[in-house]
């Protein structure tokens, strides 16, 4: 019998992958992709719980999450465009003018 | 009967007059018109001193504990009130403050030549701050004034100070600030203990109304458990000891004194240092009797160290101001040791000694400032033989020197004598060590005098020095008159402080075993002591 636990474990793995991706990839775009992984992990949780609780709130929240994720993707991509215009790069570690 | 609201407005006026003056100067007097600024400031401070005198005349020793009181709600939801009120002790300090305030303004006419407007504004603000400290009876109000006063002092040192002014100013500010914030924590602890209690030390409170009102807190002093008293005392101690300054916390003093402009030094030595001792007498002793009695030994030792150490270090100084600064460390040591003898003589002496120190050291700084103004040099080695060119100056300096080394018929003696009597009856060992301070005091002061005034005039630059002008004389004469007055007839001063002393001691006594005083001196006549007591 598949319990919520299985889903949570799976989502944990996805979450970790996302976090690691965010921390590892130099490319802004792939960093964005990793962020999307994290949101998906969350959604998995929500769905699993909503099924387990027989409660729709989880699903609804998941919808909001998806939408917000879309919005964030839009902003992020906009930033990428601006960044490319300014510095001709998408490498995040070259965006380091301010420090200390 | 705690408060006597009669004439409360007078006290408020005394406290806020300088502030009003500062605002008026700020908004209505042109920066260019420096004469107007000076004279207006002089007028205000002089007026302030004059209206402060009635406080003394109208104070009833057998009346309410705090007179000329004002009690208003301020932030009722947390029990912060606006409470003004003074007893004899505070009145003494208020008079001292207003007098020195006037003198320091009057003495700065030629000493300060740039950014004069700001200078006098800061002086006035400073005076309100200091007066507020002595007037407030609500802890928060007290704390507010205590902090407010730092800012103008910071600028007085930092803008008009000597070469290392920035360093000295920030050092002064940080030092004092650290002390006072710790004090704030102590205050809060008391506040909550009186009310809801303190989870911190697992203490249930008394469940009284939450209040910062000092006289109310006096009531609960005896119920505060010792360990809480210890911690709060510690917090207060740091705050006040830094101001005094007690021995290990004294290092800000020389810098601040040396770098500050003359008036700044006068106020610093004359009034600011007294705030520390004021705090001890007003708060630490009566609020935390148990901790106080326990702390007596340590404070006593620190004070003795301060006395001897300060004197010796003063002896080694090459800079007049530094010398005077360290001498204050020594003198304030006397104040502390007298206070912690915890008997009437000691306490009275130490209060009187506060005034004396204000007068003598204030005057000394004025005097040093006078030659500094002429020569822009404070190095003792630069001088010598001044007695020839500046006889009057030499005379004044001699009188003040004598008052500072405690020559009878001058103020210093009365203070030290009374203190030492008190101390002797607390512990003759302390008295023994403290008394050496008198010898050393004579040492460094006379040596200073010798090097500055006697001998041939070796330094060409000193040949042309002019003697005191009329204004300078008049800045000094009041202090000298006071010095003689206290030296010859201190009774009025003693009488003024008596109620305070009795109340404070009554509040400390609860923690003191009977007979303590006697045991210390028993050593002297140990074999015969007992049967003697039997007889009497």
């Amino acid at each position, binding site marked *: 019998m598949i319990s919520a636990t299985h889903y949570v474990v799976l989502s944990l793995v996805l979450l970790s992958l996302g976090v690691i991706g965010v921390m590892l990839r130099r490319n802004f775009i792939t960093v964005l992709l990793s962020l999307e992984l994290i949101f998906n992990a969350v959604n998995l949780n929500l769905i699993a719980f909503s099924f387990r609780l027989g409660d729709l709130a989880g699903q609804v929240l998941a919808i909001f999450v998806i939408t917000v994720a879309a919005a964030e993707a839009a902003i*992020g991509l906009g930033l990428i465009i601006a960044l490319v215009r300014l510095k001709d790069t998408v490498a995040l570690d070259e965006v380091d003018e301010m420090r200390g | 009967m705690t408060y006597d609201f009669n004439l409360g407005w007078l006290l408020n006026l005394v406290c806020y007059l300088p502030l009003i003056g500062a605002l008026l100067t700020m908004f209505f007097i042109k920066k260019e018109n420096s004469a107007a600024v000076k004279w207006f400031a002089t007028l205000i401070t002089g007026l302030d001193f004059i209206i402060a005198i009635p406080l003394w005349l109208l104070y009833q020793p057998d009346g309410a504990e705090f007179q000329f009181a004002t009690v208003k709600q301020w932030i009722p939801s947390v029990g912060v009130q606006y409470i003004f009120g003074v007893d004899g002790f505070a009145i003494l300090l208020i008079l001292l403050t207003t007098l020195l305030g006037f003198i320091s303004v009057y003495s700065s006419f030629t000493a300060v030549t740039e950014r004069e407007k700001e200078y006098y504004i800061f002086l006035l603000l400073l005076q309100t701050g200091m007066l507020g400290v002595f007037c407030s009876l609500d802890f928060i109000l007290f704390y507010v004034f205590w902090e407010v006063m730092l800012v103008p002092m910071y600028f007085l040192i*930092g803008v008009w100070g000597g070469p290392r*002014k920035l360093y000295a100013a*920030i050092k002064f500010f940080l030092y004092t600030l650290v002390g006072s914030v710790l004090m704030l924590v102590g205050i809060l602890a008391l506040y909550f203990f009186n009310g809801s209690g303190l989870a911190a030390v697992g203490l249930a409170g008394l469940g009284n109304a939450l209040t910062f009102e000092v006289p109310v807190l006096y009531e609960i002093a005896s119920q505060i458990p010792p360990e809480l008293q210890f911690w709060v005392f510690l917090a207060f101690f740091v705050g006040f000891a830094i101001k005094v300054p007690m021995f290990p916390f004294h290092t800000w003093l020389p810098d601040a004194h040396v770098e500050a402009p003359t008036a700044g030094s006068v106020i610093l030595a004359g009034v600011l240092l007294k705030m520390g001792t004021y705090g001890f007498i007003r708060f630490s002793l009566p609020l935390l009797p148990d901790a106080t009695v326990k702390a007596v030994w340590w404070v006593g030792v620190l004070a003795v160290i301060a006395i001897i150490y300060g004197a010796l270090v003063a002896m080694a100084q090459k800079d007049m101001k530094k010398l005077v600064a360290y001498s204050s460390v020594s003198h304030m040591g006397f104040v502390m040791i007298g206070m912690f003898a915890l008997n009437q003589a000691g306490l009275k002496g130490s209060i009187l000694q506060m005034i004396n120190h204000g007068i003598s050291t204030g005057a000394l700084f004025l005097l040093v400032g006078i030659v500094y103004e002429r020569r822009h040099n404070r190095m003792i080695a630069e001088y010598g033989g001044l007695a020839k060119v500046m006889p009057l100056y030499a005379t004044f300096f001699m009188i003040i020197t004598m008052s500072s080394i405690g020559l009878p018929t001058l103020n210093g003696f009365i203070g030290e004598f009374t203190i030492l009597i008190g101390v002797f009856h607390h512990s003759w060992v302390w008295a023994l060590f403290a008394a050496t301070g008198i010898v050393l005091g004579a040492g460094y002061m006379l040596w200073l005098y010798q090097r500055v005034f006697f001998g041939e005039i070796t330094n060409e630059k000193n040949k042309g020095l002019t003697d005191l002008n009329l204004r300078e004389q008049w800045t000094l004469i009041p202090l000298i008159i006071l010095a003689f007055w206290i030296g010859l007839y201190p009774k009025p001063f003693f009488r003024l402080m008596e109620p305070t002393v009795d109340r404070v001691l009554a509040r400390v006594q609860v923690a003191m075993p009977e007979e303590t005083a006697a045991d210390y001196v028993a050593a002297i006549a140990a074999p015969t002591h007992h049967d003697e007591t039997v007889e009497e």
Partner: protein
Amino acid sequence: MPLAEFVPFLPEIFLAAAGFALLLVGIPLRPHGTRVVSALAVTSLAITAVLVLLVGRPTEGAFTILGEMLVIDQMAVFVKLLVLAASAISILMAAGYLERSGYGGGEFCSLVLYATVGMFVMVSGANLASMYVGLELMALSVYVLVGYFKLEVKSNEGAVKYFVLGALSSGILLYGISLVYGTTGTLDLQSIHDRLAAVPDNNLALLLGIVLVAFGMLFKVAAVPFHVWTPDAYEGAPTPVTAFMSVAPKAAAFAMFLRLFAGAFAPEVDYWRVVLWVASAATMIYGNIAALTQDNVKRMLAYSSIAHAGYALMGLVAANVMGTWSVLLYMLVYAFMNLGAFGFVILLESRGYTGEAITDYAGLARSHPAAAALMLWFMLALAGIPPTAGFMGKLYLFAAAVNGGYVVLTLIAVVMSAVSLYYYFRIVVQMYLRDEEAARPAEMHRDRWVEAMIALCAVATLVVGIYPTPVVQWLSALQLM
């Protein structure tokens, strides 16, 4: 649901509409009509304020609307008004600046308004879902605002960093929410509170969820170790934006923090308190000490705002009534003093980034005595010296902490606030004590609006410092849950 239920929702609706309208108005007259747009924006904010008062003032106690999504109570009203004030002040300060910069004001104003809507939802959210979307609305608007000077490398860089880290943190927050949802079975704050209160639960999953939510909130209030975005975002963002984001979102975030932790998760306090304790201490220490050696004023203020977040957290750690309202009071005080200081920076900023280096302040006491005096006042306030409001704010926070028994934390706080004096006074030193080496004191812009706002902040700081009674009484009356 009946239309009547929407009435309490009017302020948000109005703001959103106004934002859109401003967008449309802004497009034709950018960049010259900046002041007009700003004026309109401020008017709409004012109207919103009136609406908020109409909706919220008469109610005693809390009531929820629209399917328990939102709650209207005194806290919400207070924070909403505070946020409105902050936004209005920032917009007025921004107008001249944006004009000079050539970037128009239209999008700026509407974004500020949308951010405000988001904060409204945050502070009056009664349900994790609504709170989350509110948070995101605020966050997204601010990302854009930070990157608003899209041709400035710094601005863009700040936006990028803020965005990536923000997204990461909101992911973590969401994960926490999902765990809370899974363990308590609901998103509704009230029922969460009731369940936890009924059976104090030490289920690790739940606690982990709570802690992750705490992480998300700590990020929003810029607390160590989630502060990393702050200095760069603050330095990179256009100064008015910095002023805005250092105040309004922080206040809103703290309000939400309170609703969650002093409200919903309160029964579990003994479990999560330690996390906030550590975060608070670390934040105070780190913020203050790192600020000591900053030579860029904006950056220094950024660190100082981190430190202030640390002070405010003490109120949450104390987790008693006084703690709650003292946090809000502190947010109010902090808003005014910080906005005042930033207004000064705005006035000083001229060609390039000059006006941000601390040395540019040398000798200002000579050339602009009044301005210098005001700056001194704000510095004193930030350092918490009476009689400024800064002292009152700190006083209550410390009091709350001592009362809660967190003496060590309080000691750290007091020592650190003494330290903070040092770096605030570095500016004062430059202005007052360094006149001799002021070869050419930086000239300041004459901008009536900004000056007016600075004066306003100064007055507020003074009044609250001298007579905080009304505010304190209002605040100490409100309770959540």
